[in-house]
């Protein structure tokens, strides 16, 4: 079973946290910090598995992670999961995000938390894997977007009109607002290390 899926950046800022077991909010934050601490101090090209921290269940649990550019993707799983299988799953997740967001970058995860959750929900449900086929996942996400569009088409028109007018006064779209620290794209996903 997958206990938790965490995404955080090189500075430990959480970008997505999804827990499939109940922890108190404080514990969740502690787990994120502890996991970041465990994962971030590891060299590149050491192995991608390590025994879980104390908080999330000790030695029966593994952290399986991948590091892409500015982001760490960490899956916390118990011994019933295949380590290499989970690594593949992370890859499927990232490739799916990449398809859905067209060259996904950290900012996409920040500004579209709901979308990322939706994509993840098409893959993992209640800690178990629902679907591993990327095309199938994208089809589902597409159909949701279509629904969203069609709903926005009828009811959202006024809101969109207002938003369009407001945007005219903005020198740039919020997406490109100066975000200081980072806006690094994930380059060429398939050739990650």
């Amino acid at each position, binding site marked *: 079973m997958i206990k938790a899926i965490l995404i955080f950046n090189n500075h430990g800022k959480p970008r997505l946290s999804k827990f499939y077991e109940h922890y108190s909010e404080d514990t969740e934050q502690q787990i994120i910090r502890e996991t970041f601490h465990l994962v971030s101090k590891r*060299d590149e090209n050491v192995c991608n*598995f390590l025994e879980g921290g104390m908080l999330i269940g000790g030695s029966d649990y593994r952290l399986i992670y991948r590091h892409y550019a500015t982001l760490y993707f960490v899956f916390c799983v118990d011994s019933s999961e295949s*380590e290499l299988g989970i690594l*593949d799953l992370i890859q499927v997740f990232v490739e799916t995000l990449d398809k859905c967001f067209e060259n996904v970058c950290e900012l996409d995860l920040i500004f579209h938390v709901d979308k990322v959750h939706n994509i993840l929900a098409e893959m993992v449900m*209640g800690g*178990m894997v629902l679907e591993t086929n990327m095309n199938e996942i994208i089809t589902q996400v597409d159909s949701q977007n279509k629904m969203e569009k069609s709903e926005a088409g009828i009811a959202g028109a006024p809101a969109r009109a207002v938003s369009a007018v407001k945007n005219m006064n903005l020198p740039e779209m919020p997406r490109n607002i100066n975000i200081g620290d980072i806006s690094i794209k994930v380059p060429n996903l398939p050739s990650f290390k």
Partner: protein
Amino acid sequence: MPAVSKGDGMRGLAVFISDIRNCKSKEAEIKRINKELANIRSKFKGDKALDGYSKKKYVCKLLFIFLLGHDIDFGHMEAVNLLSSNKYTEKQIGYLFISVLVNSNSELIRLINNAIKNDLSSRNPTFMCLALHCIANVGSREMAEAFASEIPRILVAGDTMDSVKQSAALCLLRLYKTSPDLVLMGEWTSRVVHLLNDQHMGVVTAAISLITCLSQKNPDEFKTCVSLAVSRLSRIVSSASTDLQDYTYYFVPAPWLSCKLLRLLQCYPPPEDGAVKGRLVECLETILNKAQEPPKSKKVQHSNAKNAILFEAISLIIHYDSEPNLLVRACNQLGQFLQHRETNLRYLALESMCTLASSEFSHEAVKTHIETVINALKTERDVSVRQRAADLLYAMCDRSNAKQIVAEMLSYLETADYSIREEMVLKVAILAEKYAVDYSWYVDTILNLIRIAGDYVSEEVWYRVIQIVINRDDVQGYAAKTVFEALQAPACHENMVKVGGYILGEFGNLIAGDPRSSPLVQFNLLHSKFHLCSVPTRALLLSAYIKFINLFPETKATIQEVLRCDSQIRNSDVELQQRAVEYLKLSSIASTDVLATVLEEMPPFPERESSILAKLKKKKGPGAVSVPELDDKREGGELNGGGDRGPDTAAMSASNAVSRYVLVASSCLFMYIGFVCKNNGVLFENQLLQIGIKSEYRQNLGRMYLFYGNKTSVQFASFTTTVSCPGELQSHILSLNVQTKPVEPLVEGGAQIQQVLNIECLTDFSEAPLLNIKFRYGGALQNLSLKLPVTINKFFQPTEMTSHDFFQRWKQLSQPQQEAQKIFKANHGMDTEVLKAKLLGLGTALLDDVDPNPENYVCAGVIQTKGQQVGCLLRLEPNGQAQMYRLTLRCSKDSVSMRLCELLAQQF
């Protein structure tokens, strides 16, 4: 075109996020967040009804704030309202909020359940999936109560869409995990198994997780899944990769599903059906063959996926442990991976090999890789890989390579990472003990261990070396000599001082003949370390000093001088002060005889599980100690012993010199003997389990209630008990008939279950029935055998008689074999009332005014067996001055006299 179009996001949300990201300090961030929270709160509370878009925007903001680690204590109601919207976007965001933010908050759950119920019956697949997701993510008991019967129906209904089926399968799994009692097996069960044959691979992917979990809990009901899984696997493995289209991942057909199928098969023994088994073996061979083929892609994903299947196949082969050919192939394959350039593969290979090492078919094959593994321990850059290498060395260790492996581990310890040192120390200590051929090697190893990694040597390790030295007199002299030499070092670890103090205190006399290690030299050496040590060590040293006074009277003056000085008898630490005062007094008042008795050499420790092994198990968690054979060899495993009591607990201070015998004797045997004269009490107790007994006997029948209490907070699974009557009873004539019903296989944490035994005594007996208990705690199988306190005296009927009758019968039973007699030392004091209580507890009548000597006790009774009655007369003559007893028994059956005499001699 990307699936998520950018730019149409919510502008307010984007601005807010940018604001937060531009905050220069934590304080600024908190200020901005509080402002936003106030804003959202007022919007929610405001009179104006919010439109769906605004609600969605605010809920998204709350989600973002939550992700940053701030508590969200409102908005739940708005989210619940969104659930009942007809618009997908609003419904969806409502569900998202709930699955991220709502724990089982009971008031809301009822409202949420209502919304879910509507969506489940909506026949709109998207809404149904949203609802199923929500159940699976929250998974509370209330939800299980509301939907546990509905979901199986959705899962197997013919007209359910594939995507809904997938969600329903995992939703049901979640409910089964949280509330197994609410998910009732039924007609749907067999249809679930057939989902393995489903056309849609996604459905199979989701269903297999459910089936695996159900099979683990109800293996028999789901047996049919084995052949279905094998045929599905075979179709995947043998197909050309193109057949599976979208489920082909980097040229590997359906890797995730293959892994899951192989995992499912690991829930079962090898298939019995020859054809199925043949097909499976073929699959496994194909998988092993494919590993040797040139890769179809250079991408790491390709090899990852391929190897994921390979490792699962190897796990299955190891699980079956019945195909020597496959096991050796698996071992060779792992051997190749040990040198692979991918760190992940080296890691997994080391890990799999650990389990392979315990199979008799492949143990030797694993051993051939010893040099590679030692090399890995020395050169791997990644500490987790080194850790696996150390584990594997531990697992492959046997008598033939123990010296090499222990030496390598010792030398690795000098540079090992701090995080794994303690575990390494435990492992070295265990291997050294287990494979010690000569115990001088063992002593050397442990002392080296203390020298190299003293800080990581836990109490248990040095307790154990002392236990072993005390129990083996052939090594005591060597130990004394070695530890004496080790203490010569200018700086030695405190643990070394502890071992030194203890061993020299007990066995210093064995090396005292040598003038270089004369008593005074020994004492001065120990005392030179005294001031650098912590309080517990000083306390131990003080005990060593008083033992010195006993062993070497010539040191008495010097030591008394030391004890008398203010820093000892006025020490601010109570324990030290007490020891100094008591020892000083003891040494000046007591005669040499008394001193010799009080400070007699420690009796051997009862055999029990190595305290170190227990520690390692505790450290690694149950089930994680990778050498199962270690457990098997020690009868009774972890449960057989009085816990890890270190020698210093038994190191006496003068006031409790007597009680040390009690301490040492508190093993199971002691418990068993305690039941001869009583019927109720605690039979056994350790950290996991407590067993209590209540029993009653009438004529030749008895009823015994056993209470098993789980002392942990974790469930015991597969809890089974069996009662057997050992050897002599079974082989010839059954003398005890014990009947019982099986107990519930699950014992929840903190719970107690009861078992009733009906016992019938057919004829007299001497061996007690054995109770065998097995259960799983965490992953580890616990196995425990105990003697049940059913002894022949339980079937006594008291017989009152006069003095005249008594002696008449006494004379009738005058044949030599009818009498059994024992003279023994009093073990428990000679208090009259206690004695009387014990004799009554025995089951006989205690006869007053029968024996001419009022100090003596006489008893009479008849033992009732089904076949015959055995009359018994007993006489117990205490001798208060000598603290001795004479016990005489005369019975109409010789074997009964013998047996009763043995039993009773242990009681007084």
